[in-house]
């Protein structure tokens, strides 16, 4: 099921006359298996578009659809449930829970989803294997390097096998070697399991690797490029 943004706009009313646009006339279709990057300078609206896709904020105009259903009509709780059911998230600063081990961090959204203990065990093990941290499941985040923490964050995002993974600047806090490894991991997950990724990024190495690049300026998609990967 694909995600769609149709004529979406999002503005913030700074004053009666002064509207600040985070997104303007955004039309976007994210088919299954897409590997897409939102690119633009700081303040261009990348994160706003990402938040709109996630249903974290509601548009002031247009509509957000998932499999044909309108997300904007959902309540706050329903949108949270929608994210839990269909999306995975990867953050720039990993956002792992420091009090939980790597395994437990991955287990967290699965517990919320209500999987059985057996399913959770299998999925955690599978996710850890995919990110190459099979032997580090019992470690707490502070016992892991930045790259390893981001891998745990990726494992958490993919463990529920979501239809869409949103990643906000996932390589920004990593050194170049680790960033390259993480990008290769994204590519592998996309290729092997047809996982759909939408990145917000400045990282040229990642931009070079994605299939679709959307250039955003002042909340508008100014250019779309497609690569063969």
């Amino acid at each position, binding site marked *: 099921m694909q995600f769609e943004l149709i004529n979406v706009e999002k503005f913030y009313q700074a004053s009666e006359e002064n509207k600040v646009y985070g997104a303007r006339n955004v039309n976007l279709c994210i088919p299954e298996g897409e590997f897409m990057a939102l690119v633009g300078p700081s303040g261009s609206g990348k994160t706003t578009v990402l938040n709109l896709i996630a249903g974290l904020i509601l548009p002031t105009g247009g509509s957000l659809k998932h499999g044909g259903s309108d997300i904007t009509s959902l309540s*706050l709780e329903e949108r949270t449930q929608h994210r839990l059911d269909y999306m995975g998230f990867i953050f720039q600063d990993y956002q792992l829970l*420091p009090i939980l081990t790597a395994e437990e961090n991955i287990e967290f959204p699965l517990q*919320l989803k209500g999987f059985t203990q057996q399913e959770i065990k299998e999925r955690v093990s599978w996710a850890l294997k995919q990110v190459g941290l099979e032997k580090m499941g019992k470690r707490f985040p502070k016992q892991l390097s930045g790259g390893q923490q981001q891998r745990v964050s990726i494992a*958490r995002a993919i463990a529920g096998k979501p239809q869409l993974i949103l990643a906000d600047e996932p390589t920004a806090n990593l050194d170049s070697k680790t960033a390259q490894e993480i990008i290769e991991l994204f590519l592998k997950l996309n290729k092997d399991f047809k996982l759909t990724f939408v990145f917000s990024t400045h990282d040229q190495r990642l931009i070079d690797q994605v299939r679709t690049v959307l250039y955003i300026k002042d909340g508008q998609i100014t250019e779309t490029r497609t690569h063969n990967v």
Partner: protein
Amino acid sequence: MRKFAFQLKFAYRNLWRSPKRTIIMLLSLSLGTGFIIWDLNFANSGSREVMKEFLTQYAGQYHISHKDYYDPENKKEFNNYKTIKDEQIQNKSLFTDSTQRVTAPVFVSGEKKTLGILLTGLETEKEMRLTTLARAVTVGKFLDPYGEREIILGKRLAQRINAKIGDEVAIIGQALDGSVANELMKVVGLLDFGGGDLEESLAFTQIKSARELMAMDEDQYHLRVSFDMENEKLPVLPGLAVTKWTELLPEISVSIRFIDHFTWVVTFIIVLVISLGLSNTLMITFFEREQEFQSLNIIGAQTSWVTMTLLLEVFMMGTVAIVTGAIIGHIVTTYCYYFPINIQLFTGGKPIIMGGMIIQPLVRIYPVMEYYWKVPLLVYFFLGSTMIYPLIRVVRRSKNAI
């Protein structure tokens, strides 16, 4: 259930995110709870023990009398012509812990002065068993059970009429048959009530002598005073009046009630102060984690899940602290049961006088079961209240989880 177990584990781990802070909160809550329980036990035992001590000295738990003996409006006034007999009391088991008394408003005349006093005739042997009145005789001796026409006077009364041990004093009054009652009695002892009013207005003699003076039959008396201190329930005796000490000594009863209520007021203030301190710490703790709450919301945790987790954290901490506090409070209370507290420490060493009598200053603290659930409930209530603002803020922020 499994989801809840995971949530519990999550909440428990969160408590140890900042161990020092959690330990400080646990300590303040548990010590506060322990202190409050001990303090309430102390206040309760203090007033009850002091009261028991006071009532055992002389006043008794309740008086059985003719229904018209005490003035219904003012129990300090009494009609001395109204007497009773044992045959009027059907429940003979009441006799075990009670003693007969004859009261006679008389003049006592020494070599220097004549004063109006209340002379009380006592069943000497029973009084020695049931009361501690004999302990107050600091000069001379208590009344001889087999003697007659002996009198013991309050120290100040003896001073004012210039009577000494071995002197004879003249007693003049009105007998119940209307004749003039007069008798010479020998001073055998002086009572020390700590210099209060009672020392100047009370005297005691054998009940037989008092009956003779008042021209009363051998089985007639005014009061049967019960010292059954453990049973506060009053017997129902048709045709007779049963008057509790609280009616006879309303000023003391009110003081005790005031102490009880004031202790609870102090308890409320202590819990409130602890709660405000905790509220501040909780707010800091929660606000430090706001970004984390937002991330949890982004990855699919409902706001209700987050707030429930926070409530669980505080509930867990509160339960551990309250149970620990109750144990601490109980241990200290038990210690003070075996090693009573001398309440003269709080009066600068001065004797404690109540209703005109010196009170034994050692207070043995007894645990009162109701405090072990009332105090925890109170602490939970305030703890819950301290959560309201931080939780509202968490809910508001999670709605803007960007």
